[in-house]
């Protein structure tokens, strides 16, 4: 009897916690987004008011687009930057593999907020990069990076790079090297071995890396708040203000639901195209 229940008993405490504090809140949030709240009393009533979505999207589609644009740019940069290094560590890391992986993770040893503050320092008008360049008159005095979209993308790309590099590394490391040898034995050139053997085999990893980078970056507001200006507000800032400043729970919930939908679409697309079993292998 208890043997048959064992898997369920083992997963019960953690499962309940996740149910109560992960799944239930998500459902609560979805229901909040359909409720109408009285701003005076803060009391909310369920009205199945789908209009909140249209209204919020109408108001903030610009910020939503900016978020897609910045998170997309940062993800593409991260994929391009980390693929070669993941490839190099997987194939040529040798005995130093763990050292190089630790180096990929090194940003995580400094608090996320501090990392972003340091980028504010680095990119500041008289900082360690622009200062000397301006001093040498290589850049005009009024040149600035901070408070532009460029700074936000740079911060996002830096902060999320490990989330891209690690799944890619796992995918490349898992390639059976004999398959590659077989390709060469069959007179594949290095270029065609890469495009017809390595790349197809890393597609699940590329997809996982994309999801693990793009989705969190989409909802990020720390980089935008610290590095960006007022004209490039991302959706995360809007949600944060809705919940913590304006106490507009219905509006904030609707926008969060939109972000969640993007994440869900990505995950289901992954499961559908590449099988749900492999999805966890990249964490």
């Amino acid at each position, binding site marked *: 009897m208890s043997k048959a229940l064992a898997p369920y008993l083992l997963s019960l405490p953690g499962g309940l916690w996740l149910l109560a504090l992960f799944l239930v809140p998500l459902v609560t949030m979805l229901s909040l987004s359909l409720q109408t709240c009285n701003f005076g009393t803060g009391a909310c009533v369920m009205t199945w008011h789908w209009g909140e979505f249209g209204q919020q999207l109408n108001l903030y589609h610009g910020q939503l687009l900016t978020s897609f644009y910045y998170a997309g740019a940062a993800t593409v940069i991260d994929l391009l930057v980390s693929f070669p290094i993941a490839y190099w560590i997987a194939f040529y890391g040798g005995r130093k593999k763990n050292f190089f992986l630790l180096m990929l993770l090194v940003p995580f040893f400094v608090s996320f907020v501090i990392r972003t503050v340091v980028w504010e320092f680095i990119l500041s008008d008289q900082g360690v990069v622009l200062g000397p360049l301006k001093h040498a008159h290589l850049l005009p005095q009024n040149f600035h990076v901070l408070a532009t979209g460029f700074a936000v993308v740079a911060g996002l790309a830096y902060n999320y790079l490990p989330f891209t590099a690690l799944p890619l590394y796992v995918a490349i490391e898992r390639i059976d090297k004999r398959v590659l040898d077989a390709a060469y034995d069959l007179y594949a050139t290095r270029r065609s071995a890469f495009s017809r053997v390595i790349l197809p085999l890393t597609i699940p990893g590329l997809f996982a890396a994309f999801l693990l980078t793009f989705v969190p970056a989409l909802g990020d507001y720390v980089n935008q708040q610290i590095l960006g200006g007022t004209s490039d507000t991302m959706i995360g800032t809007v*949600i944060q203000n809705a919940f913590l400043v304006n106490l507009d729970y219905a509006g904030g919930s609707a926008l969060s639901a939109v972000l969640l939908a993007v994440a869900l679409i990505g995950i289901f697309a992954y499961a559908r195209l590449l099988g749900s079993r492999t*999805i966890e292998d990249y964490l």
Partner: protein
Amino acid sequence: MSTIVAARQSGESIQAPRHHRRRPGRFVLPIYSWLVIAYLVFPIAVMILYSFNKTGPGLQQVSFSWNGFTTQFYREWNSVPQLSSSFWLSIRLAVTSALIATALGTLLALAMVRYRPPRFRGKSFVEQVLFLNIAAPEIVLGASLLGLFVTMNLARGFLTLVLAHVAFCIAYVAVTVRARMSGFDTSLEEAAHDLGASSWATFWTVTFPLILPGVLAGALMSFALSIDDFVTSNFVGGANVPFPVWVYGATRIGIPPQVFVFGTAIFAVGIACAIASIVLGRRQA
């Protein structure tokens, strides 16, 4: 994440593809990789450097320009009371959350490693919930938890912080412990059973010592996630302000140099732990 763990376990180094060895471009990849590593390390070096920077005249905040070397803020690390108390709050929070999340996450990992359908129906559902938990934008988790706490009239404080932090740590622990357990030899447990050990005794004398490295890795991971968390804490902390939230608030008015001192200290301890774990893992192998 769990990748380091998994890589260490596999132990053997993979042979480079043979046709790749002698080629003119063989310096390009290593040089490129070291440049990426330099890029990743650069901001950390800047942080450490600026923790030794004198402040501008009359101001107790970090300045963008270099004013000269000082160890003043290491000696006066404790002189910003709110910063120090937010730091200790973060430590308490991270220890509490790591203990709870490690226990719950380890049990989940045990269930996932040992059982598969039909004995464990819903396993793939559990896996997808874990993945969604990790991949969902943190702002959605924080906002939805705030919505829940507000609906339930639960006052925001240490309790809500712990509830929230455990909720986002469990999945990471489960995944980390599971990665460490792949290749777990169940015949050892069967042997203990055959020799008359009870399930309880088998768990504590055979299973637990074997999975202990994975459990420790999971605990370190949740400690690190919790102590670094900004978004969720910002939503559910209320007047309780953990370290990252305090630093974020301080960016508006200029951060005191002690922030970089704390950052450097956390970095040093973290790196020491990571190196110790790699060295220990190598010795075991």
